[in-house]
């Protein structure tokens, strides 16, 4: 154990402080967790069976200064333009009230949209681009131009063909139009049509749903599962059914909006812990158990921890082993949202639970979506039979929402059978392996080039940090000129100084496609000065690996 500490304290770096504290405190100082680890019976005495490497490098100080400078200039010009609009020197393009209603209570609060009006509008052409083909490894874009600086667009009629797709959540490449692959789907389409026209509790439960739920339960290794028509609605409609007033929700800082919405709708008390920080979570758990509910000091009815498998903006993987040991020690429940990790991590694509070598019984509620790795739509909740039976009767989604349509259910069935190997081929396993290879290659090359990349080495979501607001628009436009489609994200989806470009590696990407993208990134990185990393990897990986937990 001394070795990793020596690497961490001795050399280079930027520390991944969280990992370092974990190493020091999790294993040496905290008696509670040490006892927990011994009980686990893992032979080499640690919670992690393989190396867990995460990167969250901080950029040099001048980058932060220049980012704020850019935002400052943008804000000043925003105020100038707002002033001109208020004076009448410039035409107002956003919604405004009618003249007769000027004395009423204001309908449109002007200042809240300041950022949208003045900064987002200028680079708006990089989002909401309409595509006109299947979002496979390559796709076709409709070309659009703007005459008045992005307030309105018009289509020229031309399509840009074969743009390399680095933005779609197509991790295993199941978004395809191959006739042989979709044979069963078209048969089911002929048999059932497209609409279900009812909810699960009335007449919307088809034999396809029952078949799918049994298959999902078998795939994950749990007792039972329930599927819903929409992934976002799975979270936001089922969390209120599981928790209510008098319960405590401990939710990660960077959780997805669907989890936040579900938590707020439930009416429970919500406390937030720092991203992936198990010490912070333990402190909150202890406080919750010692002090109880805010005014009455009674014990909490239920304590539930909401986390995600892979966080889509950071590319980080949840620290599941510590989380499970914490949950067992403090008797809390765990809700794991595997939207991005199901099918994408793990030796056979069964998600983070398999990635860490743990049993699915450790997690109380397993949730996931079919949108990302299965090329379909919808979500599932899986776990013990009692839990799923309870949700069948009490979930808002089951009672009121239309159930999943049959062709989509068949697409999930065929994708899952392919993954499990039930269709007689090894195609599923090949896809998972190809994704792993592509991910590692892409991340390694980007690190070598000197970009700052966040996240775990095994996660197929690769955020590349751009930092300055001026570079967001330029990056996306120049990449499109080179026929590569990327997704760029800025404030408010990310912290204000950390705008990024997010790549989603797919199993359907060939080595040539990845090389094309990497060469383009190399060129753009030199032209736009994006290579902020102080530690590009050299020929000696052992010296330069950030932290290892072995």
């Amino acid at each position, binding site marked *: 154990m001394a070795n990793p500490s020596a690497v961490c304290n001795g050399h280079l770096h930027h520390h991944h402080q969280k990992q370092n504290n974990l190493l020091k405190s999790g294993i040496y100082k905290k008696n509670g967790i040490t006892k927990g680890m011994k009980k686990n019976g893992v032979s080499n005495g640690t919670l992690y069976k393989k190396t867990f490497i995460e990167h969250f490098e901080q950029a040099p100080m001048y980058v932060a200064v220049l980012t704020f400078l850019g935002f400052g200039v943008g804000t000043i010009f925003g105020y100038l333009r707002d002033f001109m609009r208020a004076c009448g020197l410039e035409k107002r393009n956003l919604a405004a009230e009618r003249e007769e209603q000027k004395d009423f209570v204001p309908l449109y609060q002007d200042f809240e949209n300041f950022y949208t009006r003045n900064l987002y509008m200028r680079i708006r052409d990089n989002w909401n681009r309409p595509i006109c083909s299947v979002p496979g490894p390559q796709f076709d874009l409709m070309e659009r131009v703007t005459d008045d600086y992005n307030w309105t667009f018009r289509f020229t009629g031309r399509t840009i063909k074969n743009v390399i797709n680095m933005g779609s959540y197509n991790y295993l490449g199941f978004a395809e139009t191959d006739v042989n692959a979709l044979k069963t789907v078209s048969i089911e389409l002929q048999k059932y049509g497209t609409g279900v026209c009812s909810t699960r509790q009335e007449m919307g439960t088809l034999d396809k749903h029952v078949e799918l739920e049994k298959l999902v339960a078998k795939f994950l290794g749990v007792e039972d599962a329930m599927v819903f028509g929409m992934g976002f609605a799975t979270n936001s409609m089922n969390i209120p059914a599981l928790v209510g007033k008098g319960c405590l929700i401990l939710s990660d800082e960077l959780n997805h909006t669907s989890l936040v919405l579900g938590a707020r709708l439930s009416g429970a008390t919500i406390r937030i812990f720092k991203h992936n920080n198990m010490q912070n979570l333990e402190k909150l758990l202890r406080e919750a158990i010692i002090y109880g509910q805010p005014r009455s000091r009674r014990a909490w009815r239920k304590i539930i921890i909401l986390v995600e498998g892979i966080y889509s903006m950071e590319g980080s993987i949840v620290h599941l082993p510590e989380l499970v040991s914490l949950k067992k020690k403090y008797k809390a429940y765990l809700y794991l949202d595997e939207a991005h990790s199901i099918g994408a991590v793990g030796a056979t694509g069964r998600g983070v639970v398999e990635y860490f070598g743990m049993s699915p019984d450790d997690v109380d509620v397993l949730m996931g979506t079919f949108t990302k790795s299965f090329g379909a739509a919808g979500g599932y909740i899986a776990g013990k039979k009692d839990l799923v039976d309870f949700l069948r009767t009490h979930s808002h989604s089951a009672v009121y929402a239309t159930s999943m349509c049959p062709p989509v259910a068949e697409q999930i069935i065929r994708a899952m059978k392919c993954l499990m190997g039930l269709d007689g081929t090894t195609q599923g396993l090949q896809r998972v392996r190809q994704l792993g290879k592509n991910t590692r290659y892409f991340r390694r090359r980007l690190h070598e080039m000197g970009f700052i990349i966040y996240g775990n080495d095994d996660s197929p979501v690769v955020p590349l940090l751009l930092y300055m607001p001026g570079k967001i628009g*330029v990056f996306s436009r120049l990449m499109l000129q080179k026929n590569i489609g990327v997704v760029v994200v800025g404030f408010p989806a990310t912290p204000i100084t950390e705008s990024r470009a997010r790549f989603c590696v797919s199993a359907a990407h060939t080595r040539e496609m990845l090389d094309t993208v990497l060469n383009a990134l190399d060129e753009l990185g030199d032209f736009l000065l994006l290579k902020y990393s102080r530690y590009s990897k050299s020929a000696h990986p052992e010296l330069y690996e950030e932290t290892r937990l072995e």
Partner: protein
Amino acid sequence: MDIKSMKNYLYWLYCQFELITCSYLMEPWEKLLFYSFNIALLVTVLYTAYIFLPGHISSALQFFWQLFGSQHENTVSVLK
């Protein structure tokens, strides 16, 4: 050849300035306003430096000379 690469380099520097200060995103009249403000500020700073710096530097030098000069005289008198 050298002029061409020099021009390319200068153009690239100009692009970096545009990106960092977000003037790439501005409409032409905003750019005009921004650049004229910047150039006016720069000219003012340079002009002020041109007028006042020699005066400031010579008075600072005088101050330090006096300090060392008086020390020199003192040591000379002690020796004597």
